[in-house]
């Protein structure tokens, strides 16, 4: 077994609320590890609206999703949070002294308390609504690349027109037997230099580009694809023979493993949300907290502002689990030299 990381608090979700929780925990001397399936911090702000303005963050008349994330990262820097990105928190067990979280990448973290800041759920690949595609998923149809080697010597169809589709087309082109890039229109939103590289490969005859809609998949009962079917603008269809399909249609939020995690821990869920009390934002299970968009209580508003407040109250209670022997003390960052030292400004 891999050796476990040890910390005070584990936070599932590195959205704005998970990030600010690091700050509130840090002021009370608690260290945190964060897990997020995204490859970067910011949650919805980073994935859904990085360039859009937010107008209701107190004292910031306007800030973009990206900028808010950057600022939070700067604010929590003194507390050295440890991030485990591109990993799904998959299992949580109670231990003698707290909890143990295991990710799908095999990372194991142990802590005294768990904060679920999972927002609207995990960001997961969008699946095309094609009949019968489930049979092939994980065998010859994939929505992400885990092992590049799996595509070695294969005839591949890559569907999509964004950065992921283009990056993987360029990355896998040298190892795959053949690649057909399939996109709905001859216009790519990816980085211009990737688009240029892709076009060069097409001109050199090393890559096939098909402008059409993916509408069907076919193969055998064991999940091995034989071809995909595309439907053109004039409604004619054609088949593209292939061994594997990689489809990149962006991400969407799904509850993911959280449902099973909560069930196992005895944390009740209500319509995909976790009920908490409004004093400590703790779930029905002591030591497990839920803050931000994932929680529910009477009057709940899914606002970043509310999540920040929830993080502050959560931290006061978490302190008692992490330092049962210490006396809790209320201080202002303005006037406490103790807090200022922690923030590295003293």
């Amino acid at each position: 077994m891999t050796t476990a990381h040890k910390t005070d608090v584990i936070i599932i979700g590195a959205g704005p609320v998970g990030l600010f929780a690091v700050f509130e925990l840090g002021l009370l001397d608690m260290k945190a590890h964060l897990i997020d399936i995204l490859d970067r911090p910011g949650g919805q702000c980073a994935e859904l609206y990085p360039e859009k303005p937010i107008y209701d963050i107190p004292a910031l008349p306007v800030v973009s999703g990206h900028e808010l994330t950057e600022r939070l990262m700067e604010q929590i820097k003194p507390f050295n949070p440890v991030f485990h990105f591109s990993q799904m928190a998959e299992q949580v067990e109670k231990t003698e002294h707290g909890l143990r979280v295991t990710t799908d990448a095999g990372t194991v973290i142990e802590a005294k308390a768990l904060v679920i800041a999972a927002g609207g759920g995990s960001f997961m690949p969008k699946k095309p609504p094609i009949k019968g595609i489930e049979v092939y998923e994980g065998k010859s149809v994939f929505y992400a690349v885990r092992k590049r080697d799996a595509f070695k010597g294969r005839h591949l169809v890559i569907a999509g027109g964004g950065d992921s589709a283009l990056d993987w087309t360029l990355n896998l082109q040298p190892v795959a037997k053949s690649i057909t890039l399939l996109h709905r229109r001859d216009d790519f939103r990816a980085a211009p230099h990737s688009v240029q590289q892709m076009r060069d490969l097409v001109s050199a005859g090393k890559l096939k580009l098909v402008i059409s809609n993916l509408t069907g998949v076919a193969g055998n009962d064991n999940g091995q694809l034989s071809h995909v079917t595309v439907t053109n603008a004039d409604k004619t269809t054609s088949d593209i023979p292939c061994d594997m399909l990689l489809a990149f249609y962006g991400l969407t939020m799904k509850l993911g493993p959280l449902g099973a995690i909560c069930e196992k821990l005895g944390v009740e869920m209500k319509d995909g949300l976790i009920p908490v009390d409004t004093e400590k934002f703790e779930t029905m299970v002591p030591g497990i907290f839920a803050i931000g968009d994932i929680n529910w209580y009477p009057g709940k508003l899914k606002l970043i502002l509310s999540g920040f407040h929830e993080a502050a109250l959560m931290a006061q209670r978490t302190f008692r689990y992490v330092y049962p022997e210490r006396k809790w003390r209320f201080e202002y960052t303005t006037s406490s030299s103790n807090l200022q030292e922690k923030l590295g400004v003293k």
Partner: protein
Amino acid sequence: MMLHVIDRDGKEHDLEAIEGWRVMEIIRDYAMTDASLAIKAECGGSLSCGTCHVYVDPAWLPKLAPPTDEETDRLAESAFELEDNSRLSCQILMSDKLDGLKVTIAPGTEP
């Protein structure tokens, strides 16, 4: 002011629309009490998800303001099973002119 919405099972619902609301918002409002109208609309109308995709009844198409480039791009990038009458319902604002508008919820918008 009425909005007619055909759900994924082909059933038509007559919704009381509110002037100035987006079609997506009206559908979502009714979906709170009728799950057959549930629509993901994940980005809340900021044109970044494509999960509010609807087909507009062809008779109504000419009455709508044409899609912006941003909407056309988003449809092409993120929506599934595009048709000529595909639109993003977060970009259609209800007004007198659209009283009686009829749309069908498209696949790929399930919550």
